[in-house]
């Protein structure tokens, strides 16, 4: 927290507060936006002819945790391409597709991002995740523990104990300091632990007598019951399989009846990997049209892109069976790491090539989804870092969204067969700066339930990014390169009212906060659930229940978000 700042004459894009390119001043005091401050005591930032937005918010980016670190260890060759020296402000580090923690924080901050959520963590290893996030500076962070293949969850569902399930989820989030609920290939990873590669949506998961559909519905209800700030965050079944758009639609549709209005109740993540048409790899096509149609017609669902960027990167997911199949296909080195009673994990490095038919279709699919879903508030811009590409490629994705010409440039160079199957040529839509502010800031903040993020309204956290783009002179559809450059290195990034980046260079290192959710269920329910859990805990895990709990003292700037559950 610092003193006062006035950002003068910026071109402000704040879609939540209906400010669309107005030239105005923004005042900051003690880490929050305020109506006005005394000019004499304030530091002035001249933002004339520059864009002012809230700090970037990333809803889905694998930046820390056991699998990210395993990917770092797996690939020294990945690091040699980008070596960073220590400076007076910065720690040393490395990183191309899996940057070291310090570099991750610095690079995000230099792009104007201030909040990044890590989306897939085994509850059993959350102390590791938290410890790594403690070492990831500049950002406010949170994590989504995995529940999609959790034994307790499947047993509660089998026995139709829905209140106990909700209480268990609340207990786990509080115990391991998670923020939201993530499902990855519900049921499919448990099957994979016996070497079974594919799982049907309505077929019981081996030895547990519940179907993936029941897991999805049950967890969606639990999240709803607990009033968690973020909806159910889902990585659907059949990821990375030709024709899987049907599964994506089926996944979203399976919880339609639970919706009672308001914010979406299900977030389908990295849809690019889950929206293919065709029946095999030879006739693979984009299924974005079908998914977009569904999302346009229903308000209970939101998505993020998982856009592919042609580059060398690393795929990593809790979806073990998918990575196994990927490794069989492309033959690269492969890590699989299953976690007892909870989840799995797989890692395969990959290079997305323009000449490759499948990769080209993937690139097309992500952009089509972004352009075909009409309401930008339902879409978040991600690359599912590092699965589709590193987060440092976001400015490229933004340029593609804003410029038909920029897309055309790439389209002309990709695999010819894929080119012919693309609808991109005919999609004239170009995102405005306001749309970009929605998909990178306001939208994700709304979906994550972060009231004080993603906008510049009075009382919100003073996270700001200022980009050197003169909207009167620059037409993003034409001069997309200028936009790309400006977005890669913010003129200013302000985090909680402190200037942390100036002219694209880090000037101050700050630790950031870690959010987690404390959803209060009734004492009786919590007590009975906990005593039952304690009685069987040692049958499930190789750690003691007391040691499973992550203590708050292990968290730098622990920030619990308290909500009240309906049970």
């Amino acid at each position, binding site marked *: 927290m610092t003193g006062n700042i006035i950002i003068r004459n910026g071109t402000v894009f704040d879609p939540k507060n209906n400010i669309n390119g107005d030239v105005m001043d923004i005042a900051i005091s003690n880490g929050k936006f305020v109506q006005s401050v005394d000019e004499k005591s304030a530091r002035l930032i001249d933002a004339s002819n520059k864009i002012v937005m809230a700090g970037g918010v990333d809803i889905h980016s694998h930046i820390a945790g056991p699998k990210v670190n395993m990917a770092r260890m797996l690939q020294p060759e990945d690091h040699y391409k980008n070596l960073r020296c220590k400076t007076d402000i910065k720690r040393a580090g490395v990183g191309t597709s899996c940057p070291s923690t310090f570099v991750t924080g610095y690079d995000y901050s230099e792009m104007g991002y201030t909040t990044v959520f890590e989306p897939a963590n085994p509850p059993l290893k959350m102390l*590791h995740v938290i410890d790594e996030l403690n070492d990831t500076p500049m950002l406010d962070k949170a994590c989504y523990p995995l529940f999609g293949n959790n034994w307790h969850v499947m047993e509660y569902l089998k026995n139709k104990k829905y209140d106990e399930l909700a209480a268990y989820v609340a207990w786990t989030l509080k115990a391991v300091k998670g923020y939201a609920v993530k499902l990855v290939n519900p049921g499919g990873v448990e099957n994979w632990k016996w070497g079974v590669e594919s799982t049907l949506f309505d077929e019981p998961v081996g030895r547990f007598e519940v179907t993936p559909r029941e897991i999805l519905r049950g967890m969606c209800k639990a999240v709803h019951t607990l009033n968690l700030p973020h909806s159910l965050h889902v990585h659907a079944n059949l990821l990375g399989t030709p024709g899987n758009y049907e599964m994506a639609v089926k996944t979203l549709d399976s919880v339609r009846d639970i919706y009672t209005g308001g914010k979406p109740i299900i977030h389908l993540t990295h849809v690019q990997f889950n929206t293919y048409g065709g029946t095999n790899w030879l006739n693979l096509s984009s299924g974005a049209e079908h998914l977009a149609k569904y999302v346009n017609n229903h308000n209970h669902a939101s998505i993020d892109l998982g856009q592919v960027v042609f580059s060398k990167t690393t795929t990593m997911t809790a979806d073990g069976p998918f990575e196994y199949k990927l490794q069989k296909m492309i033959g690269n080195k492969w890590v699989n790491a299953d976690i007892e*009673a909870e989840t799995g994990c797989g890692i395969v490095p990959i290079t997305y090539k323009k000449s490759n038919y499948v990769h080209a279709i993937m690139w097309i699919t992500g952009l089509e989804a972004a352009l075909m879903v009409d309401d930008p508030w339902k879409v978040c811009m991600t690359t599912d870092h590092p699965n589709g590409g590193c987060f440092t490629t976001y400015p490229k994705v933004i340029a593609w969204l804003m410029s038909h010409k920029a897309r055309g440039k790439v389209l002309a160079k990709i695999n010819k067969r894929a080119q012919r199957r693309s609808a991109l040529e005919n999609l004239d839509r170009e995102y405005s700066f306001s749309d970009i502010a929605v998909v990178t800031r306001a939208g994700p903040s709304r979906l994550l339930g972060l009231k004080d993020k993603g906008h510049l309204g009075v009382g919100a956290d003073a996270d700001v990014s200022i980009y050197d783009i003169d909207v009167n002179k620059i037409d993003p559809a034409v001069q997309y390169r200028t936009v790309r450059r400006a977005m890669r290195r913010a003129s200013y990034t302000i985090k909680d009212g402190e200037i942390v980046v100036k002219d694209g260079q880090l000037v101050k290192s700050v630790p950031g906060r870690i959010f987690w959710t404390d959803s209060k269920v009734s004492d009786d329910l919590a007590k009975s659930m906990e005593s039952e859990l304690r009685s069987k805990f040692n049958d499930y895990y190789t750690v003691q229940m007391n040691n499973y709990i992550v203590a708050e003292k292990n968290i730098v700037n622990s920030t619990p978000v308290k909500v009240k559950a309906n049970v």
Partner: protein
Amino acid sequence: MDIYQDVVCPVCGCLCDDIEVNVENNRVSKVKNACAMGTTKFLNYNSDRLHSPLMRTNGSQQPSSLEESITRVAEMLVNAKYPVVYGLALSSCEAVKVAVELVEEIGGVIDNQTTVCHGPSVQGFHEVGESTASLGEVRHRADLVVCWGCNPVESHPRHFERYSYTVKGRFRKGKEDRKLIVVDVRNTGTAKIADKFIQLEPNKDYELVNALRTALNHEQIQCETVAGIPVEEIESLAETLRTCEFGALFYGLGASHTAGKGRNIESLGLLVRDLNNWTKFVLMPARGHYNVTGVNQVCAWQTGFPYAVDFSRGYPWYNPGETTFVDILRRKESDASLIIGSDPVAHFPIGVSKYLCSKPLAVIDPSNSMTTMAADIVIPSSFAGIESEGIAYRMDGVTFSMKKVVEPPEKILSDEDVLKLILGKVKALKRLK
């Protein structure tokens, strides 16, 4: 009397977390659930302690003040051209973090015990990756356990009862539902209780693994015996591996430090990958020091590399064989060393140890060792996991917050705190320069 429950045992890579420790008058009086190694450590850690900082003047070590010793260590590191900080596998992850920052500051090398234990395994991992799992997965599912060049009965005494063999899991009743195969050159304690013991010739691990892969992929092995094992037996072993429901292969230094080294582990990785085409199979190194996994993890997320990280160019650089401590000493390149909780003088090759002692040498350690005896500066520290808290990683990466059950001796700091003081002093000295 205080009774501490669910204490994490800071001895081996099993990191058992169900230990009960009774403390009377700041002395551990009773230990429950721990193995002989764990019990001995909790009861006897306090013998042979270092009680005061020592500094060498005129050839003999004399007691000194903490402040003076810290200053001397800081000066030693700042004045050195190519200093090395080594050890940390018996420290908390918090201490590792400070050590990495310190090495960044002085532009030296940070290396840990991995370099002399599972370093080759890490290199095998770089080549092919691995299919692995948390130990609970093995407990619940494994019907076949293979110990290759490792001897958990003697080195990880509770491994079988907690994680892998005799333990009851969700889908396995215990030993009767599992099969134990040991591949080793010696008839070890583990081999004696195994359902099948395959005694291979020394340094023939690579050949045997590849013969198994050949048999597994239904190719002809074109000789009578491999590694001293008849081909029929290899084929039948391959069949056992292939037809299990869930197999777990643990390996030790018997696989990673025999001829072939990293290539052995690479081959084991490929064998397990092949097996996953037939069934479910996982691979895991049986790590020794309780937090050697933790050092690798912290180094990897802060620098990108798990061990042998060289900051002399300002950025992290990793090249095992070049930046590993033993190799640096062998080439006589380092000109000062700070050792944390390790005894390289006793364990490194003699020529290397001699060179290590011939240059300025500082040690942070709770107890006396050959290295502390040879050192120029010695700073005593507390025992992490007994006298101070901290985070540690089990061999499968599960993370624990270790407990403090007794107070350290007066004026004795944790290695984390000692390193923080050194770091502060180093920064101050560098500002003066």
